[in-house]
């Protein structure tokens, strides 16, 4: 069954919404201004409902099955959060209401900031960034403002080769030239490597911890000392925070600023690519630079403070993705101290998969991992089977593939993050399936090369798509 594009289903005059009858007179409009209106398709309600119902069925989400996409923390998203976010008091709230009329939302923001500070061990939080990369950018702007307040303009920033891909792009937006730091043979940063590169032209370092190999940066305290000694700042990419809630407080081990992905660690739905939320938590010395407005509390009353001369300004028209903040706030209230258990179980599951697959898949760093583990396709090279082939074949068995070919430092990487919400039976089934696929790679490799065959479409021609882009119908 295919589903036409919306405009292939149109019939002029249909409408899928009630247009209220007008209770006022119409006012003429000069031809100078009048347009023709958009060339939208006309559909009835049933057309629209069927169209998107069918589209939804072609998608794979966490509710469809195991989604071990490394670095993305595809945990279960509680249904109650959707109901809460839709409460008319929240969904219908105007962002510029006078604070007296918005005490509910302000309190949520105030408390969520405190919770995130507690979890990260930091002193202050801004909730404005709309996504992880937006948080990174915010943090870089904070670094810039901090150095500027000291009368400095630094030009470089250190970025380990195990960092997330957005890090260099975010730094570049602030005019920083990224300087790559090679991680050691053990997969983590060495103090020496940082020491060799850190200088007083360098704004600081961006460290993903646990890093994208799923390893904890053991030398972080010393690395931070080196950076601080040269007047630099340490940025923590908190995308992998799901490994260490209640186990490591980033503010206590030398991190000056960290962003969190609420749509990963705090269980807000990823939405097929957003909306997310990327709050930034900072230590005291960076607080003056945080975006405005800040939520303040005076007695029982919450207010918004705009007058902060050192602030970098605004990075979102209003208060960030508030609807996402509600969900994260609800999640933290639901979990309480079980957040630590969540991290423990996430790490347990990743290590379990690592142990049970490492005899068949090549494991480049055979060490205890955090919330994810990274394999490669080295063992399959002789059979001319790639990571991609295995990933596509997993789809035929009803699994979402892991993250592939990332991190770049590992050739043919297969990065598996099961999360704590995946029941053990599913982990076992995933492991067994992977073993079957590895056997197929030897015995019936064409099954892998032709995979997937179960989904709606087979492998797509991405090369032509990029060479002759068709971006508009």
């Amino acid at each position, binding site marked *: 069954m295919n589903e036409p594009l919306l405009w292939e289903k149109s019939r002029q005059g249909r409408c899928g919404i009630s247009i209220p009858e007008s209770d006022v007179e119409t006012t003429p409009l000069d031809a100078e201004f009048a347009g023709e209106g958009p060339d939208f398709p006309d559909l009835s309600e049933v057309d629209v409902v069927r169209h998107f119902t069918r589209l939804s*069925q*072609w998608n794979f989400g966490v509710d469809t099955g195991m989604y071990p996409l490394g670095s993305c923390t595809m945990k279960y998203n509680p249904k109650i959060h959707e109901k809460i976010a839709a409460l008319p008091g929240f969904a*219908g709230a105007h962002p510029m209401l006078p604070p007296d009329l918005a005490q509910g939302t302000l309190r949520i923001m105030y408390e969520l900031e405190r919770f995130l500070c507690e979890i990260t061990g930091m002193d202050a939080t801004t909730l404005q960034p709309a996504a992880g990369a937006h948080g990174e950018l915010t943090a870089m702007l904070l670094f810039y403002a901090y150095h500027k307040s000291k009368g400095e303009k630094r030009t470089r920033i250190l970025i380990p080769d195990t960092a997330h*891909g957005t890090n260099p792009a975010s730094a570049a937006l602030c005019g920083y030239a990224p300087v790559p730091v090679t991680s050691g043979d053990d997969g983590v940063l060495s103090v020496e490597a940082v020491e060799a590169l850190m200088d007083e032209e360098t704004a600081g370092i961006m460290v993903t911890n646990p890093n994208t190999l799923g390893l904890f940066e053991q030398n972080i305290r010393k690395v931070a000392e080196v950076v601080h000694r040269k007047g630099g700042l340490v940025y923590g990419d908190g995308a992998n925070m799901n490994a260490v809630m209640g186990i490591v407080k980033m503010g206590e081990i030398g991190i000056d600023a960290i962003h969190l992905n609420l749509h990963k660690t705090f269980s807000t739905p990823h939405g097929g690519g957003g909306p997310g939320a990327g709050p930034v938590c900072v230590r005291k010395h960076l607080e003056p630079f945080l975006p405005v407005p800040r939520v303040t509390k005076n007695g029982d009353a919450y207010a918004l403070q705009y007058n902060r001369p050192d602030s970098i300004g605004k990075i979102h*028209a209003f208060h960030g993705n508030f*609807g996402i903040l509600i969900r994260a706030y609800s999640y933290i209230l639901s979990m309480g101290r079980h957040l630590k258990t969540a991290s423990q179980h996430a790490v347990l599951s990743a290590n379990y998969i690592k142990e049970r697959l490492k005899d068949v898949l090549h494991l480049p760093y055979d060490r205890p991992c955090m919330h994810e583990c990274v394999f490669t396709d080295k063992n399959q090279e002789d059979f001319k089977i790639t990571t991609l082939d295995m990933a596509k074949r997993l789809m035929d068995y009803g699994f979402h593939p892991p993250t592939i070919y990332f991190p770049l430092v590992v050739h043919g990487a297969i990065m598996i993050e099961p999360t704590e919400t995946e029941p053990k039976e599913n982990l076992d089934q995933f492991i067994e399936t992977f073993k079957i696929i590895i056997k197929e790679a030897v015995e019936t490799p064409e099954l892998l090369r032709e995979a997937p065959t179960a989904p709606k479409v087979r492998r797509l021609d991405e090369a032509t798509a990029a060479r002759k882009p068709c971006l508009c119908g």
Partner: protein
Amino acid sequence: MRYLPHTNEDVAEMLQVVGAANLDDLFSSIPENCRFKGELNLPSDMTEWALTDHMATLADRMACSPEYRVFVGAGSYRHYIPASVPYLLSRSEFSTAYTPYQPEISQGTLQAIFEYQTLTARLLGMEVANASMYDGASALAEALLMAIRIERGKKTGIALSTLIHPHYRQVVRTYFEPTGYKIVELPCLPDGSTDLSAVDEIENLAAIALQSPNFFGCIEKIKAASDKAHALNALSVVCFTEPMAYGLFKNPGSQGADIVCGEGQSLGIPQSFGGPGLGMFASLNKYVRNMPGRLVGKTTDRDGKRGFVLTLATREQHIRRERATSNICSNQGLCATMSTMYMASVGGTGMRELARLNRDKAEYLKSELKKAGFRIPFERPGFNEFVVEFPKGFESTYQKLVGKKIVAGIPIECHYPELTDHYLLCATETHSKADMDTLVKEVTS
């Protein structure tokens, strides 16, 4: 804990396989001096029922329709959203998916976004639209950075209308702060449109940016601005906070705009205290490789069947890293999908009717306030918003109205100090004549 499926037996079995004695052991690779030894100081875990009660109490502290009559727009608009839209969006195959890196099992998201790009381009009169930005404000900042990128960084001057939403201008300044690029703000003419006369003086002009309808609710002279920009070898950037206006007014593309961006919240997305909304972003085809954000393209599979993929990723940060067109990774995909559901529900015919209705409502309120003796300072035609000058000391009347559960717009003096006692009001299809009559009665009594 209903979100943690591992039973004690599961944990024991798995620990054994891993070779750890207990859960703490799993973290042996974390040095002792990095470990947090205490307990997180968080409220103890709530049941679903306690949480629901708590959140309902907080929601009740908000001033919302229908209990309150809120005549505020200014970048966030109350429009009716058919129940079919949130229902469809609730289908968790959409909401619980990640960015569609694996196209074979993401055709739902991908086709929806391809449709979103197409409808966006049609609405704005542009050739190509991306898969979304965070919001209108950051979209504008990115649009101006893109304009400079198109000029290969050789032209770095930006003319920014002061009639662009003040928050948007603030975001632009924040993004621009480390870059050293120059921003010149263009003042307001008495009719409520932007004064373009200063543009000629700007060195190395890369782009002129207007908002239409602008912050005062007035339709701008986009054509004139575009012509001027092009004459100066610069780009015309148009932004918006209320895309529904293009159901009735000429779209920016038909008036020479090169890049068009803005906030799409109006198109079926709840206001949610300002987010998540939808940064819409479109341009001419020739600039597509300089465009920030994700793009979905049409292609075929091995059997020749139509399918969709993320494409032109060579612009993106995971490939180009620091040379990427922007750092955007997660965008507002689900909101883009929601707006597509809405645009498809309203349709072309409906969009024209609905836009007409918005204008008629606002014009009614404007004329009633005028009749009641208040000054309407800007006479350029508008859509669903306008500025009123209320008498001195209106603030106490405003507070009195709040007591009657009416929010009579927002004061704009904080952003335009010369405009004391000026308020920005909004009326949409959700405001009945009776609501508006009540407002007029109350402000005059």
